[in-house]
């Protein structure tokens, strides 16, 4: 357990301390971009939603060290479930008459729909996790990748429920920047509590030395499965935000590309720490948004610049590779970040 510091942070429960700086960063980003308004606010909103998704992924991958390629599938599930549950009944009857009655005849308020989406996705993850967590190394990566392909191909073909490859339109837009920031903060807090909980400590023990952890009586597989379920549920919450801010979703918004984006964010910040997930998301969002503007022509630091179209995608891939090659533990080095003021001890990577 982290030792309490002597600064004002000492009054806080130790479980929330690692959440402080990431939470401040997200809140500041949200306020700044909202203040700038317009396209910058939208970019900020996107980044904040990605914070939820990446922190959710880090609840599993960060604490277990096992990389999951399946999580964008959970985001997709959350997005579709929320969309289907919040769309007005009359609209569904008109647009998608073949939908099963369970879905067609209900319309839930957004918070309830998001909770249902989290729960259902959690159940899916629990079932899948029962099998997947037994695999390790490459088999695990390939199996989670297969799960992503499975979700993607079912969503993309189940015409009567998901409209198949067509987008769902007319999804009620509820999630504002404020709500997205609030959800991101809750997710960060949850991740922080998870890390400091007995489960989190067992997971990290298993991450750092699986053999020793098993030897000390830790059921590594069962614990990982719990983290997988929790992390999938929060990924679904990120998906809920996505569909409720965009008003439309389609299968091609998810899949391989989003997976590359999310994994890049996690790796750039640093896989092992909560701060890494948030810093990575912020840095990658700023980078891609800037490159996107350069593609379309913008004034940067007083000079007019216009780059080749497609620059931001190439930049995203390069960012990943540069970090993996030169700083494999990410920008944060896998550490949490202390507040820059107040005298207290810094948490270490492995308390």
């Amino acid at each position: 357990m982290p030792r309490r510091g002597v600064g004002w942070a000492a009054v806080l429960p130790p479980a929330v301390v690692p959440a402080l700086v990431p939470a401040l960063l997200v809140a500041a980003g949200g306020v700044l971009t909202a203040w700038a308004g317009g396209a910058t606010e939208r970019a900020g909103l996107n980044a904040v939603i990605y914070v939820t998704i990446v922190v959710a992924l880090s609840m599993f991958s960060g604490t277990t060290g096992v990389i999951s390629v399946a999580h964008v599938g959970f985001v997709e599930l959350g997005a579709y479930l929320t969309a289907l549950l919040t769309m007005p009944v009359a609209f569904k009857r008109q647009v998608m008459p073949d939908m099963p009655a369970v879905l067609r005849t209900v319309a839930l308020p957004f918070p309830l729909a998001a909770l249902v989406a989290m729960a259902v996705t959690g159940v899916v993850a629990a079932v899948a996790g029962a099998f997947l967590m037994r695999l390790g190394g490459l088999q695990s990566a390939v199996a989670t990748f297969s799960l992503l392909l499975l979700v993607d191909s079912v969503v993309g073909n189940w015409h009567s429920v998901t409209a198949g490859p067509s987008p769902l339109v007319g999804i009620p837009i509820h999630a504002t920047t404020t709500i997205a920031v609030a959800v991101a903060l809750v997710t960060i807090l949850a991740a922080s509590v998870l890390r400091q909980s007995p489960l989190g400590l067992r997971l990290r023990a298993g991450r750092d030395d699986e053999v020793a952890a098993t030897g000390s009586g830790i059921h590594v597989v069962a614990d990982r499965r719990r983290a997988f379920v929790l992390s999938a549920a929060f990924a679904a919450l990120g998906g809920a935000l996505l569909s409720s801010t965009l008003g439309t979703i389609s299968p091609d918004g998810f899949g391989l590309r989003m997976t590359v984006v999310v994994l890049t964010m996690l790796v750039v910040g640093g896989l092992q720490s909560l701060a890494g997930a948030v810093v990575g998301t912020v840095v990658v969002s700023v980078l891609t948004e800037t490159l996107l503007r350069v593609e379309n022509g913008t004034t940067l630091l007083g000079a007019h610049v216009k780059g080749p179209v497609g620059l931001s995608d190439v930049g995203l891939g390069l960012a990943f590779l540069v970090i993996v090659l030169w700083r494999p533990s990410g920008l944060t080095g896998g550490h949490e970040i202390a507040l820059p003021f107040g005298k207290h001890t810094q948490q270490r990577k492995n308390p």
Partner: protein
Amino acid sequence: MKTRPTRATSLLVGVIAVCAALTAACGGDDSPSGGSPGKGGGSTVIGADIARTGYISAFDLPGYQTLASAAQDPSAEGPELEVKIADNKSDATTAANVATSLTDGGADLLMISCSYPIAAASTAISQARNIVAFTPCTSDQRFGPKGLGSLVYGFGLSIQSEAAAMAEFTADQGWKRVYLLEDTALDYPGRVCSGFKHRFAELGGTVAGQETFKNDDQSITSQASKIRAHKGDFDAVVLCSYPPGGGKAVLQLRQAGISTPIVSHYGMDGAFWAGGIPHLSDFYALSPASAYGDDPVPAVNDLAAAYAKETGQAPATGAFVYGADSASILRAALAKAGGAKGDALNAALEGLGTVDVLSGKVTIDPTYHAIFDRQVRVIRATDGKFGFFKLLSPKDPAALVPYTN
């Protein structure tokens, strides 16, 4: 325990500094491109929220190109137009962001992608901001009040026109029994096929069978085998698809020795996908204009030549007329409405009646915000050469609306 406040702090400061720089940088965000220099404040600004990259860009870009040229044309009569483009990368989330930044940047109108999933994200923004949005390159009930919104229009060849023209053409050629091959990766091809089936049955045609594939399937060998097994039982294969998968399908049908005529629609317009199919013959597609210099309307051929001169390459598909056609429609409506205010422009467009455009005459249907009377060119490939074959005015495409959902 080890403390590392220095590095952590500097990292945090760095991140915040970069964010601040971005916020500052975006203050000067002014994507100027494709505009009309010399034309001042009075012009109507069209924000082009379209794909310069990604799968739909091949369909989006030609229309944008001629719209931008038409906007800069000094001899054009009517209200002045100015076009600003930003790339939505064939991606829905980006399209919504681009729609926001373009309308924030002063766009009075929004040009949206030809692809429904992408356009849907853009119109969620434009509709909320009371801005008219249009796609130059397609039209049907989804791009309108029955779908994306009351201020959304499609000025292109309607899906119903494609289906009706395909059925009429097939029947006229004396091909009474067909085999359908349908691409299910997007639902656009399937909707055309479904409209085709209805109209073809009305015209007395029958269907020998139907197979499906997905655009990114590596091989359609198994589908080709089943079609081949019915050899002699059908007069033509009807293909509903788009490149590159559609080209793959044509190639593999021919490789499998199926040499009957293949009838397709606008999705397969263009010759760019056929270079790998030696001596392709008996292939038919639909287009709003011939891109090969042999269109029955001379002005279309002039535009194709001008397009080639400006961009350095001949237009890939007939989509190049869409931008010019859209400019005429918009100029007429803007003049009538006296401005680009959403509701006024909407009323003007709905009551516009028949407009003379470069490729012929078009009428906007006030119920669906679609164009059902656009003339259709049948394009034929013979021995690998593509060219104009036949001009069609399909009968009552609007009646197919219920069958193309």
